[in-house]
């Protein structure tokens, strides 16, 4: 009986500068090292069946990353947590067995802590995020304009930390990464004082007819 193993992990310290594709590669190798009985894809190039969450932008730390792997035999999630050896800064926080999911929701709420060197810079960042700015992004060679406020769910300031919740994966809403990029490009003071970008939680938004319901995933 095939089952899903969901592994939650942190990506902090220097490991936040490992790109998403390299991260997936590193995780596949780590899974092979513990001889996890992964189900594999059929076809010419046999690959383990693994599903990663939305790509964490380069440089963003995260306390709530996850991936799902289809397994063919029972495994002890605790064993995976203890033995899955990842690079410095990456650490498995928990693992659990779940039933295979049929579809994947792209819409999600993501919480971020933006750590600044000074409270002045943090306050400038908060002000920028609260303002109803338009941000321009070039996507597939086309210039596209987004309203920043569409992505913003909530924002608060605590000393030199801006705590912000974005929604992303929804049509005409810029991703958290686009907003943070726009923020760092907004002024030199903000860019040079931004010490750490840390993702704190991800919540899937289940889209239903005429309603939106949140499901906590992490």
């Amino acid at each position, binding site marked *: 009986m095939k089952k899903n193993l969901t592994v939650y992990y942190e990506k902090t310290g*220097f490991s936040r500068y490992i790109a998403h594709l390299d991260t997936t590669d590193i995780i596949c190798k780590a899974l092979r090292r513990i001889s996890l009985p992964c189900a594999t894809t059929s076809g010419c190039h046999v690959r383990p069946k693994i599903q990663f969450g939305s790509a964490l932008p380069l440089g963003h730390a995260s306390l709530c990353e996850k991936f799902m792997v289809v397994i063919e035999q029972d495994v002890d999630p605790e064993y995976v947590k203890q033995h899955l*050896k990842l690079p410095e800064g990456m650490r498995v926080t928990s693992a659990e067995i779940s039933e295979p999911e049929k579809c994947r929701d792209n819409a999600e709420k993501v919480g971020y802590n933006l750590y600044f060197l000074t409270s002045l810079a943090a306050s400038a960042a908060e002000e920028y995020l609260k303002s109803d700015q338009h941000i321009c992004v070039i996507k597939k060679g086309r210039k596209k304009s987004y309203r920043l406020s569409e992505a913003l769910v909530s924002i608060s300031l605590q000393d030199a930390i801006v705590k912000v919740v974005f929604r992303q994966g929804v049509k005409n809403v810029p991703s958290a990464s686009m907003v943070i990029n726009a923020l760092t490009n907004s002024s030199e003071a903000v*860019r*040079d004082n931004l010490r750490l970008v840390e993702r704190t939680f991800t919540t899937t938004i289940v889209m239903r007819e005429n309603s939106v319901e949140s499901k906590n995933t992490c």
Partner: protein
Amino acid sequence: MCDLRLSLTHSELMQVEKPARYLGGETNSVPAKREPALRVCLVFPDLYELGMSNLAVKIFYEQLNLRDDVSAERAFAPWVDFEKLLLKKQLKLFSLESGRPLSDFDVIFVTIPYEMTFTNILNILYLSQIPLRYLQRNHGPLIIGGGPSASNPLPLAAFFDAILIGEGEEAIEEICDCIIKSKKSDLNVTDTRKALSEIEGLWVDQFPKSVKRRVLKSFSCTKAPVNHIVPNVRTVHNRATIEIFRGCAQGCRFCNAGYYYRPVRERKASCLIDASNELLQNTGEEALGLLSLSTTDYSCLAGLIEGLENTRLYPEQTVSIPSMRMSKNTIQMLENTSKIKSTGLTFAPEAGSQRLRDIIRKDITADEIMNVIQIAKGEKYRKIKLYFMIGLPFENDEDILAIADLINKIEKTVRYVKPRRQINVSLSGFIPKPFTPFQWAGQNSIEELKRKRRLVIANLKNTKCSWREEYLCMLEAVLSRGDKKTSELIEAAWQNGARFDGWNEQFNTEAWEKAFETTKIDSALYTGEKKLDSKLPWSFVDFNTPISYLKNEYLMAEKKAGELP
């Protein structure tokens, strides 16, 4: 000790390409020891992605870190964006393990894999704020080099305290012991260099004497390193590698590596199977590369592949065989290894005509080539790469046309079965390397190499062809056949901005042109033909191959070409 990695801010790191190249923390990397007797930094003078694929770095890193008294870390050449950042922040280049500046190490071992990294070596010293020339250095780390491109140590003589000729596994231990002893006895740099000059295979410019190439005679009994670091950035060879044998059974007259790694020493297949499984278990790599100069010449290859197949650790495991000869062994191997997956095949026929293949002693026939291609045209091989050389000694236009002819035949055979199969052809100019029978041969001029390359391409039907820039071929010949004056050329080119000379997008022709001009070095003096009885600049190196043998080989090539009775 301060960790210089912490001096870089988030926004600064975000401005460089692939910042993970400079930050370490990879699985299986060894944290720096607290107070070792000797701090060593292993430097590879090219990008992380290339350096992390280099076997020498893997061997020495694992070997030295097994010692309690030595702590070995790594550093690679920083890409131009990171170089700018270091200079802007006035930071020294640092190691990946601890962020320690290179200038704080006791010794820096530099792997010298190819001539096009020479300017990178100078750049690494400059960015570490270490004086470039050894005579300017009275303190700080000793700079010791080694590798195939330092077999003629003269072009780099001015920059290195010592250069190892030959294989390093035993010598590196002796060097470490010698430096630890010197440190304890508080010897000055000159006396330490003097002590180093007593080590077999180590050439010290300050105390020059003849030097004999170092050979690891016990190679067959040694265990291959099995704890490779798992890189945090995808490398050029994204696989685990195991060296199955060292040396080459062939005697290609142009090949420096063939002579550098002599004699042939094979590891036992049973030991290799155990080591490979341990290596795959420790790294989790999907592919295993069976490394050697000519893997299909390994005497137990079929048994090795079968053994690996029988002990397969995971379904997606593949074996990669990077150096194949188009010979009977290859045919047998391709027929017997249906279970082993491979996406591509790489062959180097080098010459198009049988006449020229005989001259260069590439012992394969047109029939063998076509037989291998016939078998390789099966479904599982998607790519076929073919390497040819132009400008070989005694070559004429018929030989050049034969290259196009052979490629067209291969193309026709291959496409008959699978129309969309990729065939990649690569052309490179011949470089007369020291310590080979062709060390006396001259190199074709840049214009002549270009003409020959165009002649090949004009006669190709469908195949796409890439080639190495002719100027680079000339430069490589100058740098490999150079003398002490060549040091000035390298330094001048570096000062003019030459970096990453092996990278097309970074190669700065102007910097080198200007360097030739200011140092008044005539490249033709280095690329031209040399008389068989002339004294070669590198003749003080005993390469374990008698000069009479090399001369005889050259004369045999001349005879084959019909230029001698």
